[in-house]
């Protein structure tokens, strides 16, 4: 199998209250993340009530995934073997801090399972897998900064070994009020070459 034969079919950015698909702005919202992401949910008529139970990281990753997979006409009715490989810097620290607050003071001790379950970064992969019925490969990496090199090699290895047909790959980070998603779909077909340089350029 030729390693360089893979392509990037589509990519999606979410940052600074904007969502873009393949480089073109498709939605602009306002306010803090909570307001912005709700506006986006309404704008794209996501209609998925579980969304409102998610933590910030999962909302961010889910929205990016939903925009991209819809565009790629991926549907839960037709099963596809799409691996999900995500990475970030802050892991689930946004929610970790909330859980820590709930146990810091023994006189105000109120840990909640609904919060605790989100103290793992890979939960956002689970959320996308549930919506799109993806029974596929999962990996969540933590890097100091976006690392196209490792992501490129890891996605290529999953495709080379035939463990998945496509890989939904990228960066989903939420820390304090700073957030950024950049995800892309690696496939056999697409307009962009799958290479470290091209991933860097699209990022």
């Amino acid at each position, binding site marked *: 199998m030729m390693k360089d034969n893979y392509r990037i079919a589509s990519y999606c950015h979410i940052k600074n209250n904007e969502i873009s698909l393949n480089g073109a702005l498709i939605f602009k919202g306002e306010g803090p993340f909570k307001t912005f992401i709700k506006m986006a949910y309404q704008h794209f008529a996501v209609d998925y009530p579980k969304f409102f139970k998610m933590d910030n990281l999962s909302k961010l990753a889910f929205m990016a995934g939903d925009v991209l997979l819809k565009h790629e006409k991926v549907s839960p009715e037709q099963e596809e073997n799409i691996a999900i490989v995500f990475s970030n810097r802050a892991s689930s*620290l946004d929610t970790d801090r909330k859980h*820590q607050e709930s146990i810091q003071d023994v006189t105000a001790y109120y*840990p909640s399972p609904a919060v605790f*379950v989100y103290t*793992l970064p890979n939960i956002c992969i689970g959320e996308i897998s549930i919506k799109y019925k993806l029974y596929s490969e999962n990996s969540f990496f933590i890097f100091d900064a976006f690392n196209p090199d490792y992501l490129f*090699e890891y996605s290529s290895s999953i495709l080379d070994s035939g463990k998945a047909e496509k890989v939904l790959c990228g960066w989903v980070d939420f820390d304090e009020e700073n957030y950024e998603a950049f995800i892309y779909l690696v496939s056999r077909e697409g307009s962009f070459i799958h290479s470290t340089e091209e991933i860097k350029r699209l990022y």
Partner: protein
Amino acid sequence: MNNTYLSHNNIVSSFGFDSQAAVVNIKNEVSGLQLVDNPKMLPEPFYSSLIPAEKTRSVFETLNPQQEYTRLEQILLVSLERVIKKSQLELNDRVGLIISTTKGNIDVLSEDSPFHKNRAYLGELGKIVQSFFGFKTEPIVVSNACVSGILAVAIAKRFISQGRFDHVFIASGDLVTPFILSGFHSFQALSPTLCRPYCKTRSGINIGEVAASALVTRSDANLAEEAVKILGDASCNDANHISGPSRTGEGLYRAVRSALSEAGLVSEEIDYISAHGTATSFNDEMEAIAFDRLGMQKTPLNSLKGYFGHTLGASGLMEAIIGMHSLHQNTLFTSKGFQELGVSKPINVITETTPRELKTFLKTASGFGGCNAAVIFQKLQK
């Protein structure tokens, strides 16, 4: 196709500072779990296996640390140092470093911690391990819930097969912290007694702590005598629920199928399963359903949670290491805590330490987020 091996290894646990200490105790059916009554950890008593902090510090001091390190960093560094030494490898740009952890230094978020809160970033933990030993390559931190430890082995193999590295060191660990205990307690998942995986009377998880380290390599030079070949690996999602396991065991079933397919084996060729077995009602039931669907009802199986509790991001690697020693000693280890089958499908839980010729074993794990992972290992031909 090139071979990849799981080789030199170390386990830091309540039993001691090497794999052998853990293996000897398991062989003698001794559990490291004890009742801990410490309201600073959890308002009520709980069962756990803890690594003694004072002893760790004195062992760690022999490495001549030049700054303050957290307790997690100390056990990771102690564990990994021993594996690096045994490997006799030079840490050049062909050598990778993977850190497997679910929560890393999460205890620094507490107001009582003397360390800066930035230490909670997992990338910081990676950099600390990297610079302590002088790794030349950027560390890869894997944080994928309770499959992290075994997934790390698969990831190491994949980077090696891609030609990126010749050797990858994995260091895995998580601490027992108020953060973790309170969370599992809020799920009502903590057992008030010693955990009893797959047993009728099981009542939940014990949380424990270990640091486990190992070398994954494509070179057959200077392999550990217990080294095994990594034949196949996979991870699959349940696509069902973020905290509840699938009722059909779908993700685990698919992960094992995929790993078998890569290994070129059928399920009857697996001599032993080192399963996840957390002793929660739903997890153990899910596994039994998956193994039943796989036709592995008769394959001897154990969960090692009865010795260490659930050791989170380290569990998959630690249990794979115990599995390779099990193969090397041609011995099936008892699934501690089990009395009477308490799952709806037949599985063959190991009830006493049994000598048995073993060639191949399967390690599985499942975790929050619906993730499952499976890796198949084979003993080397003598």
